[in-house]
C-alpha cells in the first residue's frame, strides 16, 4: 500500500510529485544541451562546409562535396584496416590474458586483494602518462625494450619508427593498459562461481582441465561476453596513446579511427567532412553494440 503511494506521484503529495520531476531535470538538461544538441549539430555539420571568417563561422550546404571527400581521403583506407587489426588483435590478447589472470588469481589462497590492487593500477593512470612512459621505453637508444634485446644478443629495433612495427607497438601499450580491466570483470565473476557446484565436480572426480572446460568456462561465459563486448567497442576510442607515441605514423601505418578524426577536424580544419566521418563512426560503433547486445541477451547475461 505504502509502496504504491510512493510510486504514484499523485499519491505522494505535492512534494513527491514535484520532486519526481525536478530531481531528474538537471541530468536531462545536461544531456540535452551537451549531447542531444551537439548530435543534431553534428548531423547538420556532416552535410555542410564551415569556414571561419570575420571572427564568425559561415555554413554552406554541401552534402555532395563531403561525400566526395570520403573517396579522396588518402588516409581513410589505411585507417579502416589499422583499426580493424588493432581491435581484433588487441582485444583477443586482452581477453586471453585477462581470463588467465582472473583464473590464476582466483585460485590463490592468500593475497587476492593485494593482487587486484596492483593489477588495476594501469586503468587509473592518465593515458597520457602511459604514452610518455612507453615512448621512453620504446626509445631506440636507451629504451628498456632495446636494452633487453641487446642484453640477450638481438639487434635493437625501431619500435615506433618502422611502418611494419608501429601498429603492434601501439597494440602492446593497449594490452598493458586494458588487460587489467578484463581481469577485473572476470575476476569478479570467478569469485562469484558457486562453491557447491565446484565441490560437487571435485567430489565426482573431475580433474583440473575438466573443471575448467566443463564447469568454469560455461559458468563464466556471460561475463566473458560482456567483457569482450565492452573492450571491442571501447577499443575504437583509443586516442591518447596513439597521439603521443606515433601520431599515426610513420605515414599512416598506425593511424586509428579516433586519431584520423582528430586530424581531419583539427589539423586539416575540415569540420564538415570530419562530421560526416564522425557520423559514420558512430553508426558503426552503435551497430556493433546492437548486434553484441542481442548476443549478450542470448547468452543470459544481465
Amino acid at each position, binding site marked *: 500500500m505504502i509502496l504504491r503511494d510512493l*510510486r504514484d506521484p499523485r499519491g505522494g503529495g505535492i512534494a513527491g510529485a514535484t520532486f519526481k520531476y525536478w530531481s531528474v531535470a538537471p541530468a536531462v538538461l*545536461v544531456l540535452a544541451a551537451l549531447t542531444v544538441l*551537439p548530435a543534431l549539430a553534428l548531423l547538420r555539420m556532416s552535410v555542410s562546409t564551415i569556414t571561419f571568417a570575420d571572427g564568425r563561422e559561415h555554413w554552406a550546404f554541401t552534402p555532395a562535396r563531403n561525400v566526395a571527400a570520403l573517396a579522396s581521403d588518402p588516409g581513410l583506407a589505411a585507417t579502416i584496416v589499422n583499426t580493424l587489426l588493432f581491435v581484433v588483435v588487441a582485444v583477443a590478447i586482452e581477453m586471453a590474458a585477462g581470463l588467465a589472470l582472473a583464473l590464476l588469481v582466483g585460485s590463490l589462497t592468500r593475497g587476492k586483494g593485494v593482487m587486484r590492487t596492483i593489477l*588495476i593500477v594501469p586503468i*587509473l593512470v592518465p593515458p597520457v602518462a602511459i604514452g610518455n612512459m*612507453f615512448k621512453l621505453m620504446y626509445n631506440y*637508444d636507451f629504451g628498456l625494450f632495446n636494452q633487453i634485446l641487446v642484453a640477450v644478443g638481438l639487434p635493437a629495433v625501431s619500435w615506433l619508427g618502422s611502418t611494419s612495427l608501429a601498429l603492434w607497438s601501439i597494440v602492446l601499450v593497449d594490452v*598493458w593498459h586494458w588487460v587489467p580491466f578484463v581481469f577485473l570483470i572476470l575476476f569478479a565473476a570467478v569469485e562469484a562461481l558457486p562453491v557447491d557446484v565446484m565441490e560437487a565436480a571435485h567430489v565426482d572426480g573431475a580433474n583440473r582441465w575438466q573443471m575448467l572446460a566443463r564447469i568454469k568456462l560455461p559458468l563464466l561465459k556471460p561475463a566473458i561476453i560482456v567483457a569482450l563486448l565492452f573492450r571491442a567497442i571501447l577499443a575504437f*576510442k583509443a586516442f591518447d596513446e596513439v597521439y603521443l607515441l606515433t601520431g599515426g605514423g610513420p605515414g599512416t601505418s598506425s593511424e586509428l579511427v579516433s586519431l584520423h578524426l582528430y586530424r581531419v577536424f583539427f589539423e586539416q580544419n575540415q569540420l564538415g567532412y570530419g*562530421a560526416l566521418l564522425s557520423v559514420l563512426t558512430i553508426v558503426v560503433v552503435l551497430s556493433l553494440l546492437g548486434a553484441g547486445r542481442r548476443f549478450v541477451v542470448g547468452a543470459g547475461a544481465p
Partner: protein
Amino acid sequence: MNASARGLASLTWTPAARTRALGLALIALSILIVVGPFIWVLANSFKSPIAILTGAWSFTPTLDNYVDVLSSKRSDFVHALATSFAVAAASTSFVVVIATLAAYSLHRFAWAQWAVRAMLVWTVAFHVIPIITMVGPWYVAFRALGLYDTRTALVLTHVVINLPVALWLMMSFFRAVPPEIEEAAMVDGCHSLAAFWYIVLPLVVPGLVATGVLAFIFSWNEFTIALNLTSQANATVPVVVSKFANDYEVQHGPMAAASILATLPALALMFFGQRFVVQGLTLGAVK
C-alpha cells in the same frame, strides 16, 4: 641451481606442486609487467641527461628533472595542476549531485518504462562512441558562445562524459536499499524528499564516494577534450604532459618526471579509496 639439483627437485615435486609453482611464477611475472614500467620511468626521472642517454643502471640521483618540470616557465606545469584540480573538483561535485538526483528519481518514482529506457539507451550510446566525434560540434558551439579555452567548457564537458557511469552506479546503489526502510519512513510521516535526504542518502554514502572518486580520476586523466577545447591559458595536466613528448627537442628526464607527477593523484586515491574504486569499476562495467 645445477642440473642434478634440478633433477632432484623434479623427482620430489608432485605434479600439483609443480602446477602451483608455475602459477606463482606467472603471478610474479604479471606483477613485474605492471610495476616494471613505473620503476624504470621513476628511475629515469632521477637521472641526469647523460645517465639517461647511456642507459646507465647505476647513477647518482638528481632532482633536476622535477625542479625543471615544476619551475620551468615553458611548460607551466604548476598552473596546469591548479587548472586540473579546479576542473576535476568542480565537475566531480556537479556530476555526483546531478547523477544522484536523477538515479533516485528513475529508481523510485513511477516513470513510464519508455522514459527510463530512453535515458539508459541514450547514456550507453553516448558512453561508447569515440569522444572525438563530439569534440567537433562542442568546439563549434563553445567558440560561438565565447567558451572556447575556458574552465567552464572543461567542467561542462567533463560533467557530461562522467554522467552515464555516475548514473548507472548510483542506480545500482539505490536498488540495493531495501524498500521497507523507505516505507517505514513514509509511515512515520516523512514526505518523499525528506525520506530521500534523511533516510536513503545516508545509506548510499559508499556509492557517492565510489562515483566521486571515479569521476575525479576520469576528469583528471581526460586528454582528448582538453587538448582540443583549450589552448595555453587553460591547459590541463595531461595536455602539458603530452607537450613533453611532442616538442621538437624532446627532454627525456622532464618527460619522465612529468609522467610520474601526473600519476600521483590517481595512485593516492587508489590507496585511500581502493575499495570504492574496485566497486565502482566493476559495477560500472557490468551493469
